[in-house]
């Protein structure tokens, strides 16, 4: 290497480092610019007493703007109205019976996760607890007595990229952990079954505050299971049901039905199962739904969908629960809808 060529090399290397720096700075600046939290303006109206006393929808705001990730509220009578934005930031949120459950990730070098139980009228925190992984599903029982949540636990699978889930049930009033589904006895056709790769997720509560439905995943298969908190037992009802959601009248279960698979990406379509016959019917929505479905009313179900491919902005849609009809956009820039039909007072108080 001669002196000149050596100098030339250093110059070229300097240029490469320069280009690398420009790319890195541009990436941060553009990435920051595209950050939904940084872009857009305020669109919120304040949370009023009248709003939470009337039937309303609580959701996670995902519109571009400084309210991204906050909990928003719109009246059920006019869901297209400008949302009221609360001070609560969550990755998943759900409210029922006057109580809310908010799952939140504190991102950092070591990311920490917390679950927060809040008053669904004031949106003030009542108690909180640490979560063992990334939030996935949150539900509150109809009377606000129980909360259930699912988290992804990284590194728990046996291939490097493996994900597995853990699902917990807590007493909302005291915060006490009542159950971890993985520790329940699981039966199929009366026989006890167990495997290391069992995963449970997506609890939905029945009115009695003891029965619940959830998903059991094992290998590539998913099952609808029915659980009994007092007896700490779970029984398998049917194959091919993910993320169940019990209808307000308790007769049907809306769920995500897996389609395709193989080497392609997972595609889920919303479907409704009749609990008396265990027969399912797919709904008119054909896009990929990866949200725990919420009953909008006795005749419609609602769910979140990304605005475009891999967009952080999502919309809440609804579709008839009996099949047929067409999907209809209900709220723009929203995720994780929870429909509150009665007044938002806690109907259950600990004795």
């Amino acid at each position, binding site marked *: 290497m001669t002196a000149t060529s050596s100098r030339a090399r250093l110059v070229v290397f300097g240029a490469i480092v320069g280009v690398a720096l420009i790319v890195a700075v541009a990436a941060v600046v553009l990435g920051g610019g595209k950050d939904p939290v940084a872009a857009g303006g305020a669109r919120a109206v304040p949370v009023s007493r009248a709003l939470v006393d009337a039937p309303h929808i609580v959701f996670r705001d995902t519109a571009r703007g400084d309210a991204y990730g906050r909990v928003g509220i719109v009246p059920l009578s006019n869901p297209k109205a400008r949302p009221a934005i609360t001070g609560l930031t969550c990755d998943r949120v759900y409210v029922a019976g006057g109580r809310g459950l908010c799952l939140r990730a504190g991102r950092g070098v070591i990311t920490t996760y917390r679950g927060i139980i809040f008053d669904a009228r004031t949106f003030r925190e009542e108690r909180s607890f640490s979560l063992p992984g990334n939030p996935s599903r949150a539900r509150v029982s109809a009377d606000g007595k129980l909360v259930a949540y699912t988290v992804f636990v990284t590194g728990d699978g046996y291939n490097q990229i493996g994900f597995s889930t853990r699902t917990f049930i807590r007493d909302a009033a005291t915060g006490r952990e009542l159950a971890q589904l993985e520790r329940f006895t699981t039966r199929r056709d009366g026989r006890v079954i167990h495997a290391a790769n069992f995963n449970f997720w997506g609890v939905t509560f029945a009115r009695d505050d003891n029965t619940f439905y959830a998903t059991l995943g094992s290998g590539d298969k998913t099952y609808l299971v029915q659980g009994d908190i007092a007896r700490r037992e779970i029984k398998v009802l049917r194959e091919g049901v993910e993320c169940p959601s019990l209808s307000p009248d308790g007769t049907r279960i809306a769920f995500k039905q897996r389609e395709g698979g193989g080497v392609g990406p*997972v595609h889920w379509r919303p479907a409704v199962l009749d609990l008396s016959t265990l027969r399912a019917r797919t709904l008119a929505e054909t896009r990929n739904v990866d949200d725990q479905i919420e009953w909008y009313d006795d005749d419609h179900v609602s769910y979140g969908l990304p605005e475009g491919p*891999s967009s952080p902005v999502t919309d809440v849609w609804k579709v008839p629960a009996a099949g047929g009809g067409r999907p209809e956009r209900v709220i723009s820039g929203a995720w994780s809808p929870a429909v509150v039909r009665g007044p938002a007072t806690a109907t259950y108080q600990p004795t």
Partner: protein
Amino acid sequence: MRNVPAEVMAAPGGEVLAAPAVRSGRRRIAVSRTVILLGLVSLFTDLSQEMVTAVLPLYLTYQVRLSPLQFGFIDGMYQGATALVRLLGGLLADRKERHKEVAATGYGASALCKLGLVAVGGAWLGTTAVLLVDRLGKGIRTAPRDALISLDSERAGLGRSFGVHRALDTVGAMLGPLAAFVLLAQLPGQYNTVFLISFSIALIGLGILILFVENRRNREPIDAEPAAPKEHVTLRSALGLFRITRFRMITLVGSGLGLLTISDAFVYLVIQRQTHLDVKWFPLLFLGTALAYLGFAVPIGRIADRVGRGRVFLAGHLALLGVYLVLRFVDLGAGAVLCTLLLFGLYYASTDGVLMALASPTIPERLRTSGFALITTGTATTRFMSSVAFGAIWVAWGPQAAMLIFLIGLAVMVPAAAIALRRHPEAAAA
């Protein structure tokens, strides 16, 4: 080798000159400029790579929406393809005597893949295709890079050269996840920013390789290789390496031990299960092992040069056996976990680069890359098989049984390997 006095090997740490110094009539071996440069190339590339690897599970699950099982399946198919290009790359590098250019192709492909991830925008088919190219790039570059290291090192200092390279490599691997999570904490969900910054870091590594690293040619004395030096390197001549007893034994021993090596993911998983460690601390286990590896890499490489690389390679597997014993029989407390990570880092330091240093003198220079490619294909394949087997046993009979089976297997395999290497003492002390 065994009779070389200690002070000969113990060159001062700051000594990084290319030319071997001469002192009191004895040659003092220094780490060559090429080795340091290649170490820096690996540092930047690993930094870039690990940034992406750290966020990939999140990205694939939340943005691409691929299930873990599907990714596992695709990943398995890629393994086969990687083995093939590894060998092809090795042959090409040897045949054209262009190790640097072949390595640069691999590094370049992986760098471009970071841009590719941005370009395909989370479409699943595009993303998996980009990841395939990325794996292929890694498959291509490893053997020619290690060949450059070995060809540019004094035979007596091979262990230390590989130790220095792996230490620098590990620094990058440790900083990568840290950088990625700091970025994602500042810009949540902005995976493209992570990918672009990863690309710019890879570019610097590639620049160092292309601009400053040079191929070495025909340095080997004629008498070491009686065959006609101009003979074309073909698949046949590469496979002909297996006729060299020492090379055959080393490949066999390395691959055989690979069958009983539990992947780090499983080791951390067992620790986490036993200690009920909060999952958020999971990255610390990786960090602890990497720190131990980083600390041990150079001293162990030097010791290997002095007492014999075969011995150190086997001793490294005894450290692994220690890991298994602790995990299987000790009630894990903080001390035991720390001890496990130290032993695990020691295992990496005594085996990864040392195996290459051990094999180097058994492979003629003109076939060095192909030889490395054959060995790494063997060990990578058996380690993959071991992961599948360990996972299957875990699911069927539980982690305790799986640990015990691998423990017994390794306890039998290490003495067997020692006997195999002892029969060919040049290999043990090479």
